[in-house]
């Protein structure tokens, strides 16, 4: 890259001499994003209107909206949609409030708080799929330690069919997901809390605000833009996170614990029905896109001051 010396942009707004320079710097990133993220989106859109089964390559043709119709008509579709809403809303609710609570507690340093943080942050570094397997082991109807503990403590008299009953299994995967995702909120909210200037907190104290008042009238409004953004990121992320379900139940019993994204994985990897899988992927993308637009409009997120 034989870049010549370009004048820097200064705070007084002097333009860089060569407008191509930044584009050269950005070129590799843009090329990679184009090939590996945006091209697949277009290819998916195209494939979703095709009869495309990997095991039947001689029989590929455009079939209009057949794949979409197939998804809506699928007997498991309603259940999977409900599961997705449940999976996202319940996981998010608990992850957020537990994360917020822990962040408030951790904001003030105590002895070993650094060590404590490092340890409770661990789930975040782990593979969702691996942890799905671990939780499967814990929740196992007969061999699992959870039923054993609950029996020994006298909480239940017969083992709970955690993974063989669809509703219990949904509860189980959501519990595992809460375990997995709280860390993200602790990290993000803690960072946001640390960004609240001390002067504001001191002023609130001088004005006689109690702890609760300070929290709701001073701290939360201050970090609101951050909260709005991380909740949005998290909703999208949880929707697209089939790893735990894949490890714990693979969507079973009888397709009853699938969410949209794990169903997508099943269509692509096991059923090898790429037309249908693509249609599902396209639907998810559209739903997430529309949701994001409405979410941002509803929360009226101002263009954040730091970006330009």
């Amino acid at each position, binding site marked *: 890259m034989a870049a010549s010396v370009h004048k820097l942009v200064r705070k007084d707004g002097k333009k860089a001499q060569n407008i191509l320079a930044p584009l050269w*710097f950005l070129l590799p990133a843009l090329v990679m994003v184009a090939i590996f*993220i945006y091209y697949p989106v277009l290819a998916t859109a195209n494939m979703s209107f095709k009869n495309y089964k990997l095991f039947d390559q001689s029989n590929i043709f455009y079939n209009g909206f057949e794949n979409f119709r197939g998804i809506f008509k699928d007997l498991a579709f309603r259940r999977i949609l409900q599961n997705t809403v449940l999976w996202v809303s319940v996981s998010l609710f608990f992850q957020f409030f537990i994360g917020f609570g822990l962040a408030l507690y951790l904001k003030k340093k105590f002895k070993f708080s650094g060590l404590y943080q490092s340890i409770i*942050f661990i789930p975040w570094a782990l593979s*969702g799929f691996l942890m799905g*397997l671990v939780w499967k082991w814990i929740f196992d109807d007969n061999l699992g330690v959870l039923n054993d503990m609950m029996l020994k403590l006298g909480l239940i008299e017969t083992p709970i069919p955690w993974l063989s009953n669809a509703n219990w299994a949904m509860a189980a995967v959501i519990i595992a997901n809460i375990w997995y995702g709280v860390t993200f909120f602790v990290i993000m909210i803690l960072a946001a809390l640390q960004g609240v200037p001390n002067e504001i907190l001191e002023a609130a104290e001088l004005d006689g605000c109690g702890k609760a008042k300070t929290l709701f009238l001073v701290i939360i409004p201050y970090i609101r833009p951050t909260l709005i953004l991380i909740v949005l990121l998290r909703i999208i992320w949880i929707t697209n996170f089939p790893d735990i379900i894949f490890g714990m139940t693979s969507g079973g019993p009888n397709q009853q614990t699938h969410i949209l994204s794990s169903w997508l994985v099943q269509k692509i990897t096991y059923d090898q029905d790429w037309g249908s*899988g693509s249609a599902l992927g396209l639907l998810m993308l559209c739903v997430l896109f529309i949701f994001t637009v409405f979410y941002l409009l509803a929360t009226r997120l101002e263009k954040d001051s730091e970006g330009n």
Partner: protein
Amino acid sequence: MFKSVGKVTKFSVLAIWFVFTLFPLYWIFLTSIRPVREVTKKLYLPQSNSTLDSYRTLFSQYAFGTYIKNSFVVAFAASAFVIFIGMLGAYALARYKFKGKSQIMLVFLVTQMIPGLIALAPLYLLLSKVNLLNTLIALIFCYVGGMVPFATIMLRGFLQRIPPELDEAALIDGCNRFTALFRVVFPVALPGIAATFIFAFVQCWNELFLAMVLIDSDGNKTFPVGMRSFVGAYYIEWGGLAASVMIGIIPTVIMFGLMSKFMISGLSAGIVKG
């Protein structure tokens, strides 16, 4: 009085969450050191007959040595590449003003909405066209491509905190933009770069679905794909599975432990301000 009640509540809550966080890991550890015949026993403390047999099986009967090596190669190479590419892009976004900049930011941000899973089929077809199916290079490319947006946005956050006077001085001293970036800015941004690197490494190390779709020969499998050998349809070998989970989580836990201090400021700088 109230104060101490508050304190008791606080530390009980923290303690409960601590136990809840660690218990699954503790339990899988206990499972991994049980003799194979006693794997399903519910004993809550390590026993005197503990053994590393399950771990030995991984390397003698399964190709876990290979899986681990592959995962390291892929995760390391992809993270290094994405840092390089991301630094270039981040530098342009942090230091230049130019037309279309906010649109480019949008191109990166919108990717956060796209389910990565939809890329599985198209990338399989794309890579089969260029004869890269079933290679580690294919995985590295895909991971780099997938991680470029977050790495660029995150690194931009770090670069914005470094005063532009620093690279200005380097330019006056005869550096060009490129050498100024890598010789002068890079070392100063190192904590942020390290945080980004580890974040990327962990993501690659844990990625399952692309690796599952793109790789099918045993010699090229990454760790999570190899793990699936233990998950038969009706039978799971829990001892081996537990041991491999332990091995699979150790690298990321160590890296993460080393960096957890930087993580808070790092991630929030990148994602929240993005």
